[in-house]
């Protein structure tokens, strides 16, 4: 048996802003190796100037999303063996976001959309009030449960055709977040939120391509949440509740 390690060719996007090119590195293949392991190997052993972003390494923080062989993925939970194609790996920054440097994108536009979609809880009670009792079996809470586990990784935003075509579009994650709040019986600003997501670039801009659902690393279905918002805003509009 040979001690020689199996090497793979890894092309990594290098550059700042819109300018850049792919640079190829030879990286040893290991058992249970993730794409994030590959990037970390390159930075620690081959080129310390490589910029990328990660934090938890276990699929919780949503920091390490990148484009791997053309598809947006969470790199810390993506095994190389599952995505390598003909012994090659191509790693680029997430699409639909400005690149800061190399594999690190500026997530500001992504989170600004959350603000625009009123993805922030608006309290309807004070600390003097009793704690709200929410039954896990209530229909509203079940809808929230189905959509709440978003880790803000931006994979859906990068996978979405409508985000690419329409710079005003709020995107799957922000609208999914808005949907969880629309179904939160404690929230006090549903009228404002429905109004915010019913404007140009809101939920009605979605083409239901379902790329968000296809790529979401935690198995959420933002398309279903957006469909819920479409229904809810339409009902509110017909009732004259959208000021």
């Amino acid at each position, binding site marked *: 048996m040979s001690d020689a390690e199996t090497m793979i060719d890894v092309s990594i996007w290098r550059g700042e802003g819109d300018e850049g090119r792919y640079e190829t590195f030879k990286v040893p293949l290991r058992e249970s190796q993730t794409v994030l392991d590959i990037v970390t190997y390159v930075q620690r052993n081959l080129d310390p100037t490589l910029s990328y972003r990660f934090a938890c390494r276990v699929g919780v923080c949503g920091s390490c999303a990148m484009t791997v062989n053309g598809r947006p993925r969470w790199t810390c939970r993506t095994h190389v063996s599952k995505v390598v194609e003909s012994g090659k790996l191509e790693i680029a920054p997430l699409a639909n976001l400005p690149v800061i440097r190399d594999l690190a994108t500026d997530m500001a536009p992504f989170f600004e959309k959350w603000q625009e979609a009123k993805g922030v809880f608006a309290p309807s009670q004070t600390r003097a009030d009793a704690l709200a009792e929410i039954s896990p079996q209530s229909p509203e809470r079940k809808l929230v449960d189905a959509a709440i586990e978003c880790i803000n990784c931006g994979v859906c935003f990068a996978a979405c055709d409508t985000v690419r075509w329409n710079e005003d579009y709020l995107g799957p994650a922000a609208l999914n977040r808005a949907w969880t709040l629309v179904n939160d019986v404690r929230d006090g600003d549903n009228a404002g939120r429905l109004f915010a997501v019913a404007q140009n670039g809101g939920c*009605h801009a979605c083409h239901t391509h379902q790329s968000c659902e296809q790529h979401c690393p935690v198995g959420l279905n933002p398309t279903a949440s957006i469909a819920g918002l479409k229904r809810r805003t339409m009902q509110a*509009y017909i009732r004259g509740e959208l000021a």
Partner: protein
Amino acid sequence: MNVRLYLAQRATALLMVPMILGHLAIIFYATRKGLTAADILGRTRGSVGWALYYAAFVVAASVHGAIGIRGIAMEWAGIRGRSLDLLMWAFGLVLALLGLRAVYAVVIG
């Protein structure tokens, strides 16, 4: 796309589904029965029913199509703001004008 345009496009689609089926049935009937232009005009001239049916169809198609064109123009041609709304209205009005002219021709003359 916003809730107003979305609702207008969906509502017109809903209206057009049975109308398209009716329109196809009429085409099949007219061709299978070998109706001539004169036969057809004989039935449509002065008919309030046909006038209403096809006028509603034309208006629904104009609204539906104009909103669709607006979406394509924005996403594929990058047109925004006032130009986008102008394009939508212009397309819809031209479509409605052409269609209503045809309805006028077969119903009134």
